[in-house]
């Protein structure tokens, strides 16, 4: 079974091909160019290098959110175009799950953090049990204070990973009460290999959708929608007081 993995949810652009229990290729860059300029050229490089016939791919796994809205859409639209052209399904892999999965086998809890601006993080808490990744706190968008409180409550050593770590290092140092470490450079950012391996597992479990159905999971509504809901709530509240 061949799974093509994509991750463009953050600054990293990453493409990987996993065949059964072998990582055949992974190409990851963390550079200022937009994903629109990097993702497909990188995939083309892999195709050429492996003399890959794209029709032999069984499914396309994509980091489906949360993350940068635009980054997620470039990944999803690329996956949807491939899925449409190759008539293959898409396996949406939660971005935070895939970040955690890179630390497979650790005895520690894993807390990935992606910078979500406005003092928030996209985060979750995970651990590894006999049958693989176990979700303790499912991925969510919460304040850094809430995230660290959740980690402290677990009362267990934790590994922090993700692009939120450099943003909130000081806060973690001052507020984290459990023993912790930061994941090293080869494990602390998005990796399409992790997306593809987790994607293969989900695919076997039947957790896939058609290319037409797939859309990213942003975990947040747009600013315009948020403001409209706030306005409507305010109007409703002032209405009940009158």
């Amino acid at each position, binding site marked *: 079974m061949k799974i093509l993995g994509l991750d463009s949810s953050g600054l990293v652009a990453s493409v990987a091909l996993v065949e059964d229990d072998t990582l055949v290729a992974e190409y990851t860059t963390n550079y200022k160019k937009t994903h*629109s300029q990097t993702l*497909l050229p990188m995939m083309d490089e892999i195709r050429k290098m492996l003399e890959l016939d794209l029709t032999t791919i069984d499914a396309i796994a994509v980091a489906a959110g949360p993350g940068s*809205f635009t980054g997620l859409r470039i990944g999803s639209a690329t996956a*949807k*175009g491939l899925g*449409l*052209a190759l008539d293959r399904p898409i396996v949406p892999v939660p971005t935070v799950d895939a970040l955690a999965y890179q630390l497979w086998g650790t005895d520690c809890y894993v807390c990935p953090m992606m910078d979500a601006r406005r003092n928030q993080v996209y985060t979750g808490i995970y651990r590894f049990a006999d049958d693989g990744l176990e979700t303790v706190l499912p991925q969510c968008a919460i304040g850094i204070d809430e995230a660290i409180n959740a980690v402290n409550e677990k009362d267990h050593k934790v590994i922090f990973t993700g692009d939120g770590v450099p943003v909130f290092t000081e806060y973690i140092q001052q507020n984290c009460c459990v023993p912790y470490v930061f994941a090293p450079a080869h494990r602390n950012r998005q990796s399409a290999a992790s997306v593809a391996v987790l994607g293969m597992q989900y695919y076997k479990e039947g957790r896939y959708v058609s290319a037409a159905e797939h*859309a990213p999971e942003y975990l947040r509504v747009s600013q315009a929608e948020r403001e*409209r809901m706030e306005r409507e709530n305010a109007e409703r509240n002032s209405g009940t007081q009158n």
Partner: protein
Amino acid sequence: MDEKEIKILAIESSCDETAAAVVVNGRDVRSNVISTQIPLHTLYGGVVPEIASRKHTERINQVITEALKEADTTLDDLDAIAVTYGPGLVGALLVGVAEAKAIAFAKDLPLIGVHHIEGHISANYIENKDLKPPFLCLVVSGGHTHLVKVADYGVYEILGRTRDDAAGEAFDKVARAIGLGYPGGPKIEQKAKEGNPQAIAFPRPKMADDPYDFSFSGLKSAVLNYINGAKMKGESYNEADIAASFQKAVIDSLVDHAMRAIDEFGMDTFAIAGGVASNGTLRSAMEDACRKKGVKFYHPSPILCTDNAAMIGAAAYYEFLQGKRDGWDLNAVPNLKLGER
């Protein structure tokens, strides 16, 4: 002459319409599917870029599949994939660009990035098989107001553009001010039918330094001042007269610029394009003015004036013939200039 059939799948997602079309040899439209988001954006009084981008992602595969099905074709029968890569909303453009690139990549097809305005101009080729460059074209839409000399296929000389608001944008803003809502173009046109276009003397702005540039923000302000003035004096105002007089001022300005350019550049053919080109009052004013000069006048049907992918397929065909091919690093260019590569 027996030429090979060139069949192109075109994708357009630059603003609030998700669209796909199959076009053969640039002028034969086999399908033209448009999924509009207008009702969604009406809640906000205008297009919300993030919502538009999300909706494009949700709808794009269905729209493409429908376009292929309606054209009774498959991806295996195509010669190229074309996509709008600018100008427009960057997040919205990126959805179409990423999708088009992935399809072309997976099917090993040539990829052609198309300029949105070039698409609007080329919409005229679809129903007017006899239309060929050179001609003069006025592109008027919610985002653009350009007076363009089409010297040859893919060769454009911009004679004038708006300095501030696009014509369609002015329609939207005035419609909002008199309570007609979004989108303003069709609503103003409808309301204007009940009003007197001579009732209020709104200004016809002219640029002293460039005879072919447009400006609509002064006109828009004049309308808003008129309404505020009436409100402050506690006087009522006639919305239909405002709509009719405002529309007349816009049309006078557009006709005047176009006719002067026709005279100066000795053009014998003139076309209009873009969303505002579906305004019937504008079309008949242009038609009359052209008839008086003995100039041939062309305009697309309303369905080809609005943002659509058939026009992108039309433009892409001529790019294809000239050998234009884009790489897998094709990016969205939100402020792409016409004639730039």
